[in-house]
């Protein structure tokens, strides 16, 4: 019986021969701290692998990508982003319509799920920095501040990198 069970298991393994799911490795770099209105760190939000897309001097806007992690028990609703390096920041979603046209649209809020991640990427949600005050230099670091709907702020650093 044991032998037939073993063979049965081998058979199952042969039929359902799928690579084992990869466990997502967390990027080493992680910056960021949060503050509530009283100014005490709440550290509910952490930012991993944040990066600002380097653009040539003739381009005045750029994107910010990375992964936002919410360690808290409730969803975190982000309603704004700002940095000294740009006149204003915007929250964006990427949409593709039925005709196959892809573009970005501003959105009033981006939500980081409780105990989960929100990935900011070229094909999905992301942050935009509009009206850069000076041409970006590869390797420089920008400090950005996200605001949540309760008035809490979450500040993090992001290097400027060429894609």
């Amino acid at each position, binding site marked *: 019986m044991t032998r037939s069970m073993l063979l049965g298991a081998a058979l199952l393994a042969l039929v359902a021969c799928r690579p084992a799911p990869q466990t997502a490795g967390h990027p080493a770099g992680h910056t960021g701290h949060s503050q509530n209105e009283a100014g005490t760190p709440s550290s509910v939000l952490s930012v991993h692998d944040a990066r600002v897309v380097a653009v040539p001097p003739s381009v005045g806007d750029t994107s910010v990508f990375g992964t936002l992690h919410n360690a808290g028990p409730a969803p975190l609703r982000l309603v704004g982003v700002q940095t000294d390096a740009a006149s204003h920041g915007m929250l964006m979603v990427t949409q593709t319509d039925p005709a196959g046209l892809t*573009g970005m649209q*501003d959105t009033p809020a981006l939500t980081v799920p409780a105990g989960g991640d929100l990935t900011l990427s070229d094909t999905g949600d992301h942050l935009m920095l509009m009206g850069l005050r000076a041409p970006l230099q590869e390797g420089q670091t920008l400090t950005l501040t996200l605001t949540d709907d309760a008035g809490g702020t979450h500040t993090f650093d992001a290097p400027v990198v060429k894609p």
Partner: protein
Amino acid sequence: MTAPLPAQAAPPAARPWYVSALLAVVAVTLLLLGAWGVARLKSPHPFYGMAYPAATAATGFQGEVAGGQRYTFTPGQGRVTALFFGFTHCPNICPLTLSYLSKVRAALPPEDQKRFDIVLVSVDPARDTPQDLNDYVRYFGAGRGVRVPEPALGQLARAYGVAYQRAEVKGAAYQINHTTATYLIDAQGHLRVLWDYTQLPQLDRVRADVQHVLETR
């Protein structure tokens, strides 16, 4: 005293179920491998992107490039071209497309790099000057940025199945929503394959497509 009965031959043991099942799996696997082998023989390179039907002619065009030069794109002429449509106020997809294609080009053998061009046609000729396009393309990689004025741009886009549309963004300059494919044109001037933007990060597979097209003169 009776003679002992001759020993009865034991009935042949039935083949256990799992052996039959294993044999069936082996048979099906062999059949599938055979079918895959035949398919591979018929089409030696399974394209990663979406392949075009044989002898689909690519459309040429004229436009302006940096330095006030006229530029004429004549498909083929012994060169392989990756062509895509974008604009310099594009925050994500256009820089990354240029970056991916440039990395693909850099991964080709040097003699192949000399025959492989990357061309960006602006879908925002109202804002993109030839100089802006040139700076943009050079910044994110290697290639040529071309401004094709309307109405020629509209006709060119239709020929490639490209769509683009102005989209207002609150509190910012307008954007252009557009289709995001990259088109690969071979040395004979035929459209061979298109990659959707989401496929480009698979650099090795894109490069294999390019290399195959470079080799089929």
